[in-house]
């Protein structure tokens, strides 16, 4: 039986450890035979904003990890369109999650509607919220 697992990211990325932990868990589940989906929604979409630079705050950040998701075959990465709109973040302002294996073209999170996310949620055996 195909097993579907979703990681949903709701919190803003730097004020707590939650988003960092969510990314760790993405890499852990990438090594299992599981159909993993990752959805960034609410303040979680802030994690995908390009140009985040922790050097002034003395923090390493996780931008490099996000850019390695495709290398670990975490490719089903989605972002809620409504949450982006509320925060005035355009699609052009999202970070890449890696490069396509064959074409080397950068891969970006797929922008989806809340209705599509609801449909996806219905198909999961488990959802881990962060």
């Amino acid at each position, binding site marked *: 039986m195909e097993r579907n697992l979703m990681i949903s990211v709701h*919190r*803003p*990325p*730097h*004020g707590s450890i939650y988003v960092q932990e969510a990314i760790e868990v993405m890499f852990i589940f990438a090594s299992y035979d599981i159909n993993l989906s990752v959805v960034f929604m*609410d*303040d979680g979409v*802030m994690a995908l*904003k*390009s*140009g*985040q*630079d*922790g*050097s*002034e*705050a*003395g*923090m390493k*950040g996780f931008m490099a990890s996000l850019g390695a998701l495709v290398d670990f075959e975490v490719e089903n990465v989605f972002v809620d369109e409504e949450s982006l709109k*509320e*925060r*005035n973040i355009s699609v052009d302002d999202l970070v890449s999650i890696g490069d396509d294996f064959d074409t080397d073209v950068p891969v970006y999170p797929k922008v989806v509607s809340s209705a599509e996310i609801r449909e996806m949620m219905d198909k999961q055996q488990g959802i881990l919220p962060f």
Partner: protein
Amino acid sequence: MLHTVNKSPFQSSNLKNCSRYVKSGDALLLLEDGVYAAMQGTEQSGLIESLLSNGVSVYAISADLTMRAVSQPIEGVTAVDYAGFVDLVEEHPLHSWL
């Protein structure tokens, strides 16, 4: 009075609640996730815009802005470093909204 807000305005009503108690001449400092309130053109931008137009001085920690890629905060918001934070605390009585 100096008010500090460290939560995102999308996740917490702290900034909205705080703004009811802030008067002209007061200072408001945004830090940590609070700096998301200083982003331009969002559904929450109106909170900071109305405080600025009511004569409140609005500051945001520079390291928190750069970390979160808020590269062009709402016009009128002043970026300060940690030394500037200390100066503000020295100059005003403090109320932290946590």
